[in-house]
Every structure is written in C-alpha cells, then in structure tokens.
C-alpha cells in the first residue's frame, strides 16, 4: 500500500517536473519565435526593397550574369587569364596573413599558457591582448590603413594578420594546454633557454594541431581577403567591384571572376579538409614496419 503511494508520489513529482520544464522550454521557444519574426519584420521595413517584392527577383541577377557569360563564352578564358594575377594576389594576401598570424599566434599562445609562459605573471595580459586582437573586425584596421598607406594588398594583409593572430592564438593556447610539459622540463634541466624549450619541447607535439587550425584559418582568410578587396584593398574583390560597376552588358567579366572565386574557395576547402583529416587522424600507414 505505502509502496504504491510512494511510487505515485514519485510519478506525480516527475510529471510536475516535466510539465514545468516543458513550460519553460515553451516560453523560451515562444520568445525566440517572437524575436525572430519581429526581427525579420523590422529588418524588412528598414530595407530599401521589401522581402516579398524582391523574392521573385532573386534569380534575375544571376540569370543575367549567366546568360551574358553563355553569350560570350568564348571570351571567358581570356577574362580568366586577365584576372588571374588578381586572384593570385588575393591568395597571397590570405597566405601571408595566415603565416604571420600563425607565427604571432604561436608566440602569444605560448606566452599565455600556464607552465610554458616566459613571464607567468603576464599570462592574463597576453590573454587580454589576444581577445582584443580577435575582437577588432578586419575592416576597421583595413580602412584605417588604406587611409594612411593607400590602397593595395598590404593594408588587407596587415588587417587579416592582426585578427588571425588573435584567433589562432586562442586556438593554439587550447592545444598547448593538452601538451605534455615533460619535454620542456627535461630541456630546462639541461639548460635550454626559453626559445629552445618551446621550439624543441613544445612545437613537435603541437605542430599537427597547429597546422590543422592554420589551414582552417587559411580558408577563412581567402574569403576575408576577397571581401576586403571589395572595400578597396586590392585583389580579386577589387576587380569584382570594378567589373560590377560597368553594369549590364559587361557582366561576362563579373561572371568570370565569380567563377574563379567560387572554384578557388571550393578547391582550397576540399584540399585543406583532406590535409586536416590526415593531420588529426594520422597517416593510415605505419611509419616503421
């Protein structure tokens, strides 16, 4: 008898708990839905063209571009050749900024990891520095540098490298936390200085993970350097902006640039994800027999 009431009590408790939980989830969901709808309505009212009036025109522009590209298909290879240097510039911006950002991030992350830091008291300072570097949007630095240095690839490169340093620094320091400190201690005990301890004791352990993150960043940076080009920082984005401004009848060049950008992004994405897979899961064959 008492057993059954006990079970009933538990059952009632459980049902009440579930109800309350459902109620909370329901309220949260309702708030979320309300936020999304009102947000979309607000954004719609602030937009130059409305959503519903524009929806049927979404495909108009791609259609025009494709039609013109098909019309002048014979000229496309020529355009590709013309804009190839700009594409290389975009890739160079991304590569150089990833390289310098990775080097900077590596140093910063080591200075900000407990057990490795050169000056342990300054760990919070270096963490803050990385946070700030990560927070500043690339466009802010790029625009300021364009004003001072003039247009071209260098402002974009510096802007992206700055952000990359912060972003990779944070990821690297997470990797560092999992690295064994024994090699560092061993090296320290035989009198290695800090640089030697890091390069010989830590880098070999973390290099695959670092490389994997840096490759991921390279993908992101290609997109970033294309976008920054659009606001005046050189590369394929800048050419795209020019090609777009020539308007109807001249979209074949834009089409060629679209195509190049798309292909590059897909190829780099696929290659880097293959490499990353290999880096994190290891080579499938044994190294030694």
């Amino acid at each position, binding site marked *: 008898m008492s057993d059954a009431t006990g079970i009933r009590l538990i059952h009632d408790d459980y049902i009440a708990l579930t109800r309350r939980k459902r109620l909370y*989830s329901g309220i949260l969901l309702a708030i*979320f839905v309300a936020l*999304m709808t009102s*947000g*979309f309505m*607000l*954004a*719609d009212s*602030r*937009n*130059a*063209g*409305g*959503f519903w009036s*524009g*929806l049927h*025109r*979404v495909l*108009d*522009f*791609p259609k025009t571009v494709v039609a013109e590209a098909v019309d002048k298909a014979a000229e496309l290879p020529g355009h590709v050749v013309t804009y190839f240097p700009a594409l290389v*510039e975009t890739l*160079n911006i991304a*590569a*150089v900024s990833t*390289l*310098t950002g990775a080097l900077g991030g590596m140093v910063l992350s080591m200075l900000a990891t407990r057990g490795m830091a050169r000056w342990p008291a300054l760990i919070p300072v270096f963490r803050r520095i990385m*946070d700030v570097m990560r*927070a*500043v*949007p*690339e*466009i*802010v630095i790029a*625009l*300021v540098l364009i*004003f*001072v*240095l*003039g247009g*071209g*690839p*260098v402002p974009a490169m510096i802007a992206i490298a700055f952000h990359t340093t912060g972003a990779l620094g944070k990821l690297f320091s997470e990797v560092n936390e999992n690295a064994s400190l024994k090699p560092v201690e061993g090296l320290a005990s035989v009198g290695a200085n800090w640089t030697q301890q890091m390069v010989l004791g830590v880098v070999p352990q973390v290099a695959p993970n670092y490389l994997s993150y840096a490759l991921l960043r390279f993908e992101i940076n290609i*997109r970033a350097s*294309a*976008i*920054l080009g*659009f*606001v005046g920082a050189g590369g394929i*984005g800048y050419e*795209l902006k020019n090609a*777009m401004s020539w308007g109807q009848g001249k979209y074949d060049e834009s089409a060629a640039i*679209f195509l190049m*950008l*798309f292909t590059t*992004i897909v190829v780099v*994405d696929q290659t880097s994800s293959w490499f990353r897979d290999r880096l994190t899961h290891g080579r499938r064959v044994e*190294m*030694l*027999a």
Partner: protein
Amino acid sequence: MTMTADPSALNGDLKRQASALFRTKRTWSFALPLIVLAYLTYAFFAFDVPGLIRTASPENGQTLLRDSYSYKTHVTRDNRSAEVSIAVEGERKGAYPEGASPDWVTLGEVTEIRLAGGGLVTFGPEEVSYDIPGYGLVTARPGDGGANATFPPGDLPEWINASKNRVAITTDEGRLTITRNRTELFRYTTGWELFFFTLDSPYHGKGPGELLSLALNGEAAGIWHDFWYNPMWMHASVAWALFETVLMAFLGTFGAAIVALPLAFLAAKNFAPLMLVRQAFRRLFDLFRGVDALIWTIVLARAFGPGPLTGALAILVTDTGSFGKMFSEALENVDGKQIEGLSSVGAKPVQRYRFGVIPQVTPVLLSQVLYFFESNTRSATVIGAITGGGIGLLLTQAMITQKDWEEVTYYIVLVVLMVFAMDWFSGWVRRRLIAGDGEGH
C-alpha cells in the same frame, strides 16, 4: 620465419630506416623555415612594399591620430566685414551664437585668443598678431598687397610657411592662417567636442552634479533628449546602427540554424539511407558555402536593395551551408541506442527524432551556433559596409569624408565593445545551456 633467421640483418635494416626517417625530418625542419622565408620575400616584392613605403603618407596618420583624441575650434575673422565667428570643427552645428565665446576668447574691438602654453593671438581692426612663446611676436596687416607680415629677425623656422599672400603658422597648440580676406585660427583642445550636448542646448557646459540635480527636478527627459539627439554625434542613430548590426547577425545565424537543421537530417548517413538524396544535399551545402558571403551579398542586394535584411539574408544563406555540413556531421555521431530504445517502446519517427536525437545533439549544435553568432557580429560589420546597413556603413562613410576622425574612433570603440559584449554573451549562454543543464533542452 625470416625474422628469426638473422636478427642482426633486421637490426641493420631497422637502423637504416630509422636514420632515413631522421634525415628526412632534419631536412624538413631546415627546409620549412627556408621555404617560408623565401615565400615571404616573394610576397614582399609581389605586394610592392618598397613602393608602398614611398607613397605612404605619414601626415595622414598624424592627422588621424591627433584628431582621434583632440578637436579644433575655428576662430575666423572676415577681414572685409570684420566679423569674428567661432565654431567647433568649423561646422555650423558647432557654431557659437553671435556674441558668445569660449572662455579663452575675449571678443571686442580687439579679439584676444589665449592658447595653451602661453601663446596670445589678437585680431585687431587693422593688425593681427601672434605672440609665440620662445620665438617672438609675429604681426600682419592683411589688406591690399597680401598678408603683409613681419617676423622676428632671423631665418623663418620650418613651422612658418610664408608667402606674399598667405602666412601659415603651425604650432602644437594651434594653427594661424592669414590671407588678405580671412584670418583663421585653429585651436586644438584635448577631448571629443560637444560629445554630450551641443552649444545650443541649455545643458551645455554643466557639470554632472548640476545635471543630476536638474534631472531630479523633472528635466530628465529634456536632458536625455538633448543628449540622445545631439546633432553632432547623433547618438540615437549610432545606437540604432549598432542594433542593426547585431540584428543582422542574429537573424542570419539563427535563421540559418533553423533552415539547416531539417536539411542536415537529409544529408546525414544514418538518417538518409538514399545515397542520391544525401549527395544532393551535401553538394547543395557545398554550393552555399562555396559561393562566398561576398557574392551572396551582391546577388541579394540586387533583389532586395541595400539594408539590414539583405545583410541578414546573406549571412543566412552562407551559414546554412556551414551549419548543414556541421550539423549533419554531428548527427552522424549520435548514439543509436537511444533511438533504438524509443522505437522499442513504440515511438513514432517524429517522436524518435524529438526525444532520441535532438537532446543528444542540442548542446553540440547550440555551441556551434553561438560561436557563429559571435563571429557573425564581426562579419555583419563588413557586410553592412557593402550592402549599406548598420555600423559598417557609418564607419565607411565617416572614413570616406576623411574629416571627423574622432567619430571614426568613436565607432571603432563601439564596434570593439559590441564584439566584446557578444563574446561575453554567447559564452554566458553556452555555459548556462550546456554546462548548467545536462539534458540540453
């Protein structure tokens, strides 16, 4: 069998392999830095850095730096009508009303302007003078024949630029320009001008204590109105622009998550047994991701015009691709036992997904979505600059005019604070939802 035959041969073999391995490793560890160095050297010239250093304009940098923490007040005398006008940054919005002046200017027959560091400038009816501490008195009688300036004996220092018709004296505290028709003085002052109230507001120049007591006496609404709609800084529109940027990121990120979740089921190996469907959706995700946010922004701006909706949709479309890929990978990693258990007690497919799959993947998905929300706040700034919405637009506009660098600084500070706030907020939600509530819903 061969292994036991000759252990020494095997040893030698292993040793050879090991030393070969070491050799490759050593070669690589020397070659890699060299390759990087060679590449950077190539990039140095490909980017034409030497040319850039030649054409860079440090003066622009100096103006920018100085303007970001100080402002200038223009005191201008029209030499024909003898009228003296005073305006902050030379803007009409910052003009002092007739007869009013800051306390370092004494208006009268002879207008006296005291500069920081002891300099004294006078605008007389006939004569302009500038008493420069440590140098001497410069006088000029602008009129027929140009500026007619006289300087202390000796060579002119390089901060004085004098010709027959125009004299310009630039010091750290100010800059005096004299021409036949106009005498103009810029006085630099540290700080951001009229940040709280413009000159036409009755609250200008009042201290915080005084403002507080006024606010308590029922003038709070007026004070707020004068501050919020300050015509020089336009705090209301800046706040709106910030909100618009966050709104773009919010709608884009969460809209993408909502669209991507059902599609991800169709691209996951364990939920879409049909290879064709799976491949089709995966390629679709690749397409959305591969066509960069830049291209989506351009395409969508053609249809919807500039504005926050276009930016939100651009983020939405790009991130649908990213989320679709990430979600389907997460779905492939779910534990099948819970679904099995549910189906064993007779759950229908929808119930199986709701109670067997969603609780498992929610923490992972939510944390990914929040990471994206945070980084999309930054992207929305850039996209806003292209489509014309949010703080990105204000920032580019302020930069293009190349005048109000203190406003640019203000926007930059706000953007960084905004990103910090989103960083903190998404971290807080992640901790609450994922660590706090183990069941994840």
